[in-house]
């Protein structure tokens, strides 16, 4: 059986570390992908990134199981992380 503190640590790390990484990746993705001048794209990405960061932390604690909490952050990270390098 997995001890409680381990599950809690996983959620804390997912929320606070994973949450920041997700917001950074989304901000980067939007900066590159949005079809507007670069200043606009960069600022839009960062302003949305802050919201993503907060939502991700809430999600990490709100998800029914720890596995869902982790996947909910990891999957979008992987998805955006995979697409972003190919945007020109």
């Amino acid at each position, binding site marked *: *059986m997995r001890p*409680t503190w381990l*599950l*809690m640590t996983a*959620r804390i790390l997912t929320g606070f570390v994973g949450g920041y990484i997700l*917001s*950074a*990746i989304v*901000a*980067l993705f*939007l*900066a*590159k992908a949005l079809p*507007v*001048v*670069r*200043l*606009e*794209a*960069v*600022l*839009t*990405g*960062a*302003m949305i*990134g*802050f919201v993503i*960061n*907060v939502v991700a*932390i*809430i999600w990490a*604690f*709100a*998800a*029914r*199981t*720890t596995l869902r*909490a982790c996947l909910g952050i990891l999957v979008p990270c992987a998805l955006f992380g995979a697409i972003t390098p190919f945007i020109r």
Partner: protein
Amino acid sequence: MSITADRARRPTAERGLRPAMAVLHTWGGLLFGWLLFAIFVTGTVSYFRDEISLWMRPEIGQLTATTPDVAADAALRQLRKNSVGVRRWMIDLPTDRSPVTSALVLRDPKTGPAATRLTLDPASGAPIKARNTAGGDFLYYFHFDLYMPQRFGRYLTCTAAIVMLVAFVSGVITHRRIFKDFFTFRPRRGQRSWLDAHNALGVTALPFHVMITYTGLITLLPLYLPWGIEAMYPDGRQEFVIEMFDDAPPRKTLNVAAPLAPIAPLLAIASAEWQGGTVGRLVIDNPGDRAATIRLVRQDSERISHAVQSMLFDGSNGALISKTPVTGAAAEARGIFHGLHLARFSDIWLRWMFFISGIVGCAMIATGLVLWSVKRRRNAANVGHKIVDALNVTAITGLPIAIAAYFLCNRLLSATSPGRTLWEVGCFFAVWLIAGLHAAIRPQRDAWREQLWIAALLFATVPTVNAIRTERGLATSLVSGDWVFAGFDLTALATAVFFAISAAHYARRGEVAA
């Protein structure tokens, strides 16, 4: 094995949304609460940054207002008297809130001090002899820099802001009957009362709190989320700074002497460009050289948006070189968010509303911190609990005590003593440290009671010492309608009364739970 038994073994988060959010709210709030309280207090006080700076330099009397033309011309005449090795003059013209012209002179270090600050009479340009002080600027910079080296304080502030936003969301979800409970207050019921107060304070100013926290993050946007900038500006930050703040590096000097073009026509051109707006700042690079430039920046109190509007002129012939391009939607949104946070646009009444909302925010954080302790009073003997109690006292009463000491230090130190700016700042931190030690040593009840009284005493002393050490005591300023000084002294007295009432209430009830 029954389902309930299985559930009991799961972490709180897996028992349901509300308990999970309660855990996040409680522990996130506790760990960052002290920092957030300090950020909220110094931020709230910074709504009156200019007024505090004026109070801390009582030598600056009430000056007659002038037009920007006169002030700019007078300042330039004064600065030209000593222009050897000057690289930049940055001149902030007087505003409704700050009646002086302030100039920053940057020099080639071979020819003199690298940076000199001057306070000038707007009408004559003559330097005003006023004491050195860290002023309202110290509290303003502490609000996000935390007086830490490098950018460490700013990163910490950003993280705290994210946690604050998380606390708002999780707090609202935790709060079962947010509307009904808003009208509930159960006084003198210990833990219940603290909870009701925390909820009422949080909900009342919730829109303000969310706005101020999110816009606070926006002000530090390039620091916290630089990844888009890094990717889209491969040639470095400079390009981003030019596009965002319209602030290009100065041109290379030609070493050919040329007088500066008359300033008044340029101010008129800028004013026409901004549909009657006024110039707030002049940045003059390489004055006296053929390659000089004059950058005119619009007064930031005229618009909600803090996005820069400026015009760049050739310094010798006055020809327009460039002006801020029309901004896009995102840049404009960012500018408005930044402007909302700084509230430079607000008049005195709105400013007081912002100030009061900020105080409500401080009270919400303070009641939350106390609630944590009161709720767990059974464990009061634990080391962890004792640390929380000591830190609560250090933050909630220790910081106001340190601020009062900072103001007192400004009045008690000789106006001419060298290094007095550092003494003021040192006094602030030393007193805060002593308050922390006091909170750690004394039993919790005594620590609260004594520090509440000390805070009351010190804030009452501020106007008293001001009346003794300057000619601008409360009676004088009230009679002469000097609202900056009267406002400061009256606010200090009101703060003293607040702490005295809290102390008396506390003494009568005999515990925080009162």
